């Protein structure tokens, strides 16, 4: 578009670059600032007297002899056992993504290949479920989970997260499978395959781009969840996000804010890496629903 256009006047150019720069700072600066500050002592991170201390680490130098310290990370990961939360998040995310992709692939494929009315109704029901804020369901979970004594453990949370993930993943995979021509599996069926064999031999080899995109979004949902994990996990099984929230209660009063800062940075790093490697898939997933209209 820009190449075919006449050259922009200088004023407009400056305006555009200025605006982009402003947004860039707004989007990136908080993360860079917090990352840098996480290697300082609290008096540098919150330096009311002289903000340059936060960059140079003057107080950190006084305490530790150098401008950087891993004390916050040490405190969070070892003393407060943040590694446990990290491990729990890993387990929850891995199994949530695996299970929800497996069952949503089957379901989404079936929905895209069924021409009957009920497929449409099922999609509408899934849309309604997608609109429900997850926290509204929590009070329905607690009583039975207490009664069957399955509250507080990771498998329960994983199953709940899988279920809450389903509507979204189902819609995403449904629209992805619709883009794969029906003739492919129809011709396999003409050649004598059953529906499942057609799915296995024809669809599975070509479905990975869509499945990876859907997987990224279920991962993000599980990784970022707070409402469900905070309510359904016991203290020792907490994942990172509720753990950070309980840090805020305990460490703030003990003057160990830097533990929480280090924990926050630790939780952002995996997301940063994810965006770095899967930027294209994330963008295509975000626009997938929109392009359809």
């Amino acid at each position, binding site marked *: *578009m820009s190449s075919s256009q*006449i050259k*922009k006047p200088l004023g407009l150019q400056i305006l555009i670059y200025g*605006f*982009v720069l402003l*947004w*860039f700072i707004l*989007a*990136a600066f*908080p*993360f860079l600032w917090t990352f840098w500050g996480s290697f300082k002592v609290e008096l540098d*991170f*919150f330096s*009311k007297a002289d903000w340059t201390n936060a960059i140079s680490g003057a107080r950190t130098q006084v305490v530790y002899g150098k401008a950087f310290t891993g004390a916050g990370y040490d405190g969070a990961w070892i003393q407060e056992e943040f590694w446990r939360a990290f491990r729990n998040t890993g387990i929850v995310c891995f199994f949530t993504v695996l299970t929800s992709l*497996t069952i949503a692939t*089957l*379901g989404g494929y*079936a929905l895209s*290949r*069924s021409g009957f009315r009920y497929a449409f109704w099922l*999609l509408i*029901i*899934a849309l*309604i479920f997608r609109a*429900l*804020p997850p*926290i*509204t*369901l*929590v*009070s*329905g979970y607690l009583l*039975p989970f207490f009664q069957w004594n399955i509250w507080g453990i990771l498998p329960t949370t994983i*199953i709940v997260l*899988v*279920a809450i993930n*389903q*509507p979204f993943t*189902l819609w995403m995979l449904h629209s992805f499978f619709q883009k794969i021509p029906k003739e492919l599996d129809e011709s396999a069926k003409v050649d004598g395959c*059953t*529906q*499942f064999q057609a799915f296995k031999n024809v669809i599975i080899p070509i479905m990975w781009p869509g499945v990876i995109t859907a997987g990224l979004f279920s991962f993000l949902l599980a990784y*970022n969840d707070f*409402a469900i994990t*905070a*309510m359904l996990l016991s203290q020792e099984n907490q994942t990172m*996000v509720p753990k*950070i929230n309980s840090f805020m209660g305990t460490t703030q009063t003990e003057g160990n804010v830097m533990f929480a800062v280090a924990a*926050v940075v630790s939780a*952002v790093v995996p997301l940063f890496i*994810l*965006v*770095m490697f899967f*930027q294209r898939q*994330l*963008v295509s997933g*975000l*626009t997938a629903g*929109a392009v359809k*209209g």
Partner: protein
Amino acid sequence: MKHKTFFWFFLPTAMAMFLFIALPLVSVVSQSFHVPHDKVLITVENCDPFGCTSQTQIDHTLTQELYEAEPLGQWAGLGIYFDRGHLAITEVGEMWRGSSDLGDFFSTLKNLPFYRAMGFTLTFTFVVTPLVILVGFLIALAVNSLHQRLKGLMIFFSLLPMIVTPLIGSLILFWMIDSRGIIGTGLQVLLENPDLSLKASTGLTWVTLIIYGIWHAAPFAFIVFYAGLQTVPKETLESAMIDGATRFQQIFHVVIPHLVPLVAFVALMQLMDNFRVFEPIIGFHAEAHATSLSWIIYNDLGGETRLLSSAATTSVLTIIGVSILLAPVLVRTWREFNPKG
């Protein structure tokens, strides 16, 4: 696909949604009509050589029996809906009669927890949603006119505020706006008010939360609009240019009409997500100044006493709110998939 094959393919996901979404939903609705049983108390008289004392105790067997007979608790009808913590019918009636004008009425209404939360939730939803669309559109226009390499970099950094966990993102900003943090101190110097604290006043807290909401969601609008901009028909743009349309006119008459369906999509997604605003309130420690419906549920469920019935009632009211908000989407999807009838 045959009915039978469809059934087997769809069974696992249907089971998951039925057991962990549909059934809990039914349970939430039924909980909202019941209050837990009171413990059955009995008075026991203990007599010893020094005399008799009477003591009130919980009769565990009787209590147990009561729970077994009616596991849901006592039927309360709409009682919880109308109590002070929720719709507060009596209190609202009194306020209506007691207040001199409409403004007065609304300012007293803010003392009731449900209406206070409703006020913030609705304000947040309807301020953040249009601003997200506007900011996202402007970023998309600006980034689209950049050099190819810069575009990729901008998309990468723009994704961060959206991808990062809301609680964590709001904590990062919370530390920065702390009166000792960089933004907090900066504002104090800039406004020459050393006592300025963004956390101290209700108005400023709301502004902070709304700015956070825009920061968090603008990338989503940006990405969707940016993708839309790539498909703007070049011929139309060129013919508009030949006809002498200015840049502004091109945007207004060609680009924006092309993006209208996307605006509808972003608006609906945003309405849905902003209505459930919750994590930022926790992250910014803002519960003294701003509460939302989701926050009330969280607050009822947490802590020592889990107020399940109260939380269930707020949940049902929230769901009713979501349905009202999203009725247009459902109707639209219905029409889209159902062109014949």
